[in-house]
């Protein structure tokens, strides 16, 4: 073999090796966290029995943008199962907004300990994100850091689940019809992680990932309840999708011992009175977590 031929084969071998390396690096073991986020230690949160709740309603003022009909002709199965598929970015019933993500963003318990200084254990039960009728159910959901997300495909067609986070690694998996559920978890908190299907580009969902369990998603009637909140004064945030990064509003809430606090938010026209609007998505507070990965 001549010197030139040797060089050519060498270059080809290096290129193929790089491709193989990239291929191996892009695979994440099923059911594990993707990265080695630093494990921090803090004061373990222990319920004292005097926890309260934060309840409220998310209102939408003014005329909401009309839902847009989705053309599902690219995959006939989608049209058969969901003939009237439409966008879900503004699910409004009688002026109340569904699928708003509400969570404690900051604050401290009555003994002065910041909520960020506590550690919380990720629950062992999973959160399910289903692909059904070529849209995600639910449209917005919350999960704790390292809590397992169960991704199911209830459609007779293939989907592709693609998380596009900023603080966590990108994750993209194909899921043929009839395939077993996929599991995934996030190692870092992030409000919110967009989810999309590259197979059916209209499919969108959002996952709010927090290191504490104090979050909720508003129901279709706009109501929400955050349970098990230790007494204290907190900044509560409500996030609603729309635009490039969504809109977030915050307000200060004091939760009494064994009591309930109210946090009503409003989005839409002239809605700034209920909560201060935020121009961009803010990173969730970093609370030390007990779960290891």
């Amino acid at each position, binding site marked *: 073999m001549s010197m030139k031929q040797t060089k050519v084969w060498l270059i080809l071998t290096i290129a193929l090796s790089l491709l193989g390396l990239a*291929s191996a690096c892009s695979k994440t073991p099923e059911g594990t966290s993707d990265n080695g986020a630093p494990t921090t230690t803090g004061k373990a949160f222990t319920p004292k029995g005097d926890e309260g709740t934060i309840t409220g309603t998310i209102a939408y003022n003014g005329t909401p943008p009309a839902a847009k009909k989705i*053309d599902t002709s690219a995959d006939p199965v989608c049209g058969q199962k969901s003939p009237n598929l439409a966008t879900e970015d503004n699910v409004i019933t009688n002026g109340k907004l569904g699928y708003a993500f509400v969570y404690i963003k900051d604050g401290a318990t009555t003994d002065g300990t910041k909520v960020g200084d506590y550690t919380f254990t990720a629950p062992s039960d999973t959160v399910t994100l289903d692909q059904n009728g070529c849209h995600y159910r639910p449209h917005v959901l919350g999960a704790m850091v390292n809590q397992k997300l169960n991704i199911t495909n209830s459609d007779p*067609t293939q989907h592709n689940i*693609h998380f596009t986070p900023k603080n966590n690694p990108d994750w993209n*998996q*194909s899921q043929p019809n009839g395939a077993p559920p996929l599991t995934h978890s996030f190692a870092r908190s992030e409000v919110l992680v967009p989810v999309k299907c*590259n197979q059916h580009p209209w499919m969108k969902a959002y996952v709010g990932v927090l290191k504490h369990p104090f979050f909720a998603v508003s129901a279709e009637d706009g109501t929400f309840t955050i349970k098990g909140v230790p007494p204290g004064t907190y900044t509560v945030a409500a996030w609603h999708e729309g635009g490039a990064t969504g809109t977030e509003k915050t307000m200060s809430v004091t939760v009494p011992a064994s009591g309930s606090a109210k946090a009503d938010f409003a989005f839409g026209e002239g809605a700034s009175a209920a909560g201060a609007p935020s121009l961009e998505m803010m990173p969730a507070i970093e609370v030390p977590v007990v779960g290891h990965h």
Partner: protein
Amino acid sequence: MSKGLHRFALLVACATFFLIIAGALVTSHDAGLATNDWPLSNGQVFPKMVGNLFWEHGHRMVATTVGLLTIALVVFLFAKEKRRWVRRLGLLALFGVIAQGLLGGLTVKLNLPLAVSAAHATLAQLFFCTTVSLAVFTSQSWMANRPLLDERPGPPLRYICSAAAATIFLQLIIGATLRHSATWDKPLPTDLLLTHIAGAFAVTLLLGSASLLVLRRYRDEAFLTRPALVALALLLVQLSLGVAAYIVRAASPNDPQPLNPMVGVTVAHVACGALVFATTIVLTLRVFKVLRPAEQALKFSAATQRG
């Protein structure tokens, strides 16, 4: 000279142009990750072509065809072509198409990192120009004996054409980076967009000057005026498509999915960009073929007078 070889080189160039369109369709539909598998699609050679998998797997099938055609072209060149440098150009095209396939696989496996995706889109344009050049070099018009023409006084056309080709290539890199910076549901980054617009002005100035100078100085030389006219016409179409692409792309984040007007216009902009680059390469090659540099022209003129 083999007419068959030239026709086959033309076929490869046309197939490559079709491949660029197929690739642009993948980007505009945001279909690059419709499967996380490569080179197979979901473990299959022929998966069910529904949803965005139609675009992604379709692109892979066209790319495979172009790869096979390129191999055949190289075999054809080594069998029929006597000029060693043309055969070597064929080999370069083969390496180009292999590298392009590997880049395509790499970008899927790494979830479309901007640098790899932009490199994939840029190499596509370079490969296309290599196949166009092969078609030019194997053509009858290229190999015909042509009298040399003198560069006229003024800015030398050889330099202006070269600068135009280089600027268009840079503009293609910026355009590819811009397209892969944000999917259809995200706004385009302003800094890149402004750079691309500035690049359009630079291309218009250089290519417009080159074409108009050719048309003014060598109006009877169809060998030069044809590509100059085509380049000028394509440039005007491309500028219009650029404005249209900006308008539809700016509106697309509000759409529930990539809609046909946005897909159609942005893909046409990519395709026309490739044609502008290819035509400029043809014009530049022809200018270098028939124009005698000014200093040589002077020497030639002096020698003729002495003789």
